């Protein structure tokens, strides 16, 4: 048994010490945080470009659009469209807005420009004209109805509803949750598992091929059993994967904590979680508006410690289970070939269930209660990925236990089969191996 630890140690250290591992481990969280920061910055950033838009108003509306800090509207009279168009560059117009005479019936205005107008400009112009016309119509109705407080009464009919989703916990207590966030977590976790199984499974396969093509394998198996060498490699690589995952969790955690402290000062997560609704929050608790607070509260409510720990625990279990299952197969493939180009014919039966699992995962995220979801999370070749999609939504304990035991059982069976292929395959050189050949190997006794 001692020897298997020596093998695990070598497999682990030789990979962890590689420069590519260090770069991937430290750079990925920074990259992810960077992409998010960039996206948020892009969304929050105001459009600060100064623009002037020529307005040809042929309708009876009076000043339907008004200039703002960055966008200036110039109303032009006594000119023709062609004139304005020809002098557009010289006058520095960004676009020409034409409000037709029949705006009331056609309900269409036109924006002409050389470059595609930005979405903000387009929606701003449209909104202003709409509001202007609505206001006119409303005033007319109010005047005709002869009710002085109609305006206030109409305003009072506006009733925005915000939906809070609350889940019953195991002990009957209620938990605040967010469907969108659960879906996001499920997706992310299952995708990472898919990626890890592939990434590290292929590493196991490469390692086996390397040992075979280096011709070192026979030297080693004269000291240790082929099974020990195979398991040592699989476990060593699994630990590399776990190390990477834990580093990512820790580093991302640090970045998010530091980042949110910088971005959202004055938001006290605890007060936020305890408050039953946004309205109960002490006035002026922060500079953010109600919508933003609601989102943060959702995130805070979904991410309580037990929930996060549960997901990370499930992630580690299903990552290891799925990885062990598939990497044993990858090891068997590696042992049967002489070089990586020959692996293709044997890779297909491994990659198809994996990719299938990912697609089932997508479907399950939309409907976590379907029978597809159930079977997908019970069958061991798809369960590591599909179950992870379901877990954030909550899965009955018995289903979880059945899925886990089947995964462990299958892993043991597959490892046993893979070991039989492996110990024959690693000593075969220069022979094109077929499935029929592998079937023969399975029936050799040591």
């Amino acid at each position, binding site marked *: 048994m001692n020897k298997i630890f020596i093998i695990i140690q070598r497999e682990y250290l030789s990979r962890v010490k590689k420069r590519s591992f260090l770069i991937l481990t430290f750079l990925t969280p920074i990259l992810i945080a960077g992409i998010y920061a960039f996206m948020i910055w892009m969304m929050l950033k105001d459009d600060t470009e100064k623009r002037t838009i020529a307005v040809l108003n042929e309708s009876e509306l009076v000043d339907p659009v008004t200039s703002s800090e960055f966008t200036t509207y110039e109303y032009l009279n006594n000119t023709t469209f062609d004139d304005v168009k020809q002098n557009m560059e010289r006058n520095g117009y960004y676009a020409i807005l034409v409000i037709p005479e029949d705006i009331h019936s056609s309900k269409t205005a036109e924006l002409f420009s050389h470059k595609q107008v930005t979405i903000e400009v387009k929606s701003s112009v449209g909104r202003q004209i709409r509001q202007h016309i609505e206001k006119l119509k409303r005033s007319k109705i109010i005047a005709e109805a002869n009710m002085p407080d109609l305006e206030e009464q109409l305003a009072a009919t506006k009733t925005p509803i915000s939906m809070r989703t609350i889940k019953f916990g195991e002990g009957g207590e209620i938990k605040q949750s967010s469907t969108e966030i659960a879906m996001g977590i499920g997706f992310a976790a299952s995708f990472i598992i898919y990626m890890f199984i592939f990434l590290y499974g292929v590493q196991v396969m490469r390692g086996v091929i390397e040992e075979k093509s280096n011709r070192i394998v026979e*030297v080693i198996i004269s000291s240790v059993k082929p099974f020990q060498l195979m398991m040592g490699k699989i476990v060593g690589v699994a630990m590399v994967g776990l190390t990477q995952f834990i580093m990512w969790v820790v580093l991302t955690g640090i970045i998010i904590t530091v980042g949110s402290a910088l971005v959202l000062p004055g938001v006290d997560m605890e007060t936020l979680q305890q408050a039953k609704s946004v309205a109960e929050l002490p006035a002026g608790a922060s500079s953010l508006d109600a919508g933003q607070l609601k989102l943060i509260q959702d995130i805070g409510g979904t991410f309580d410690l037990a929930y996060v720990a549960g997901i990370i625990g499930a992630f580690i279990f299903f990552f290891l289970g799925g990885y062990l299952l598939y990497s044993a197969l990858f090891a068997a493939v590696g042992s049967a070939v002489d070089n990586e180009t020959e692996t293709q014919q044997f890779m297909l039966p491994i990659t198809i269930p994996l990719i299938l699992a990912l697609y089932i995962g997508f479907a399950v995220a939309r409907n976590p209660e379907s029978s597809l979801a159930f079977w997908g999370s019970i069958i061991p070749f798809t369960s590591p990925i599909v179950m992870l999609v379901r877990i954030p939504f909550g899965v009955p304990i018995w289903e979880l236990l059945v899925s886990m035991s089947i995964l462990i059982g299958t892993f043991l069976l597959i490892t046993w089969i893979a070991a039989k292929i492996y110990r024959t395959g690693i000593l075969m050189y220069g022979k094109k191996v077929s499935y029929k050949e592998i079937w023969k190997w399975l029936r050799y006794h040591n």
Partner: protein
Amino acid sequence: MTFFEAKNVVKQYAGHKALNKVSISVPKGSIFGLLGPNGAGKTTLIRIINQITGPDAGEVFFNGQPLKPEDVKRIGYLPEERGLYKKMKVGEQAVYLAQLKGMSQKEATKKLKSWFDKFDILPWWDKKVEELSKGMQQKVQFIVTILHEPELLIFDEPFSGFDPINANLLKKEILELRDKGATIIFSTHNMGSVEEICDHIALINKSEKILDGPVEQIKKKYRTNTYEINYTGEFDKLEQVLKTDFEIVDQEKGIEHNTLHIKLNNGSTSNELLEQLLPYLNIVSFREIIPNMNDIFIRVVKESKTI
């Protein structure tokens, strides 16, 4: 005393028999040659000794006891297909391989350093294997094979790929190990390369052992009583002069001297032949043609076919 013994070992692979009731017996402290053409089953037998694979039938004894898994640390094996991790540092790798044989890290490091020093490769301790020349890599492989002081050493095609200088170094070290008490098995298809250092041999052909025993005895058994005579001078009527017991097998004219191959039949002796030749020829040299392993192998294979 027998150190290693295999009795009626059978190994069957789908489609063909790799070993068919092969028995060998390796005396303690000897150098044992396992000879035969490629694909005869030598490597399969060696893998059974190393417990890389197990026999389907038959028994294997190590030092009088049935072979046990723990025995691997008493065996050193240099396989035909041998290599090292290219990206790993030389010293680190040698220590790793020694640890797998059951040595402690400290002991392995200490011993390795002294062997590396002896083989002039100590400066390469911290280099990656891919930076080493082929010859240096072979030295490392050899050191790793013998480092744990195994009682039984197995070399599969040891000299293939070695340059003559390293091959000689290897031979010297192997003989030294033998003198210290190790038992050595050589496996090769190149029979000429090992016959001078082997005490015992076994010939394997097509999964079966066809001949074994001490080298001296085998050679004696397969001698053909043929002598080679180099002489100067001319004599055409030799055939008429010679008694019928002496058969001229071959006759050749050379620049410096001429050569005759004469076979002695019916118990006649070499002295009688000399007496017959002396009056007619000016003899330069006279020696018995001793068959080499290659010749013996070809003969035995032919004989086993005709039976």
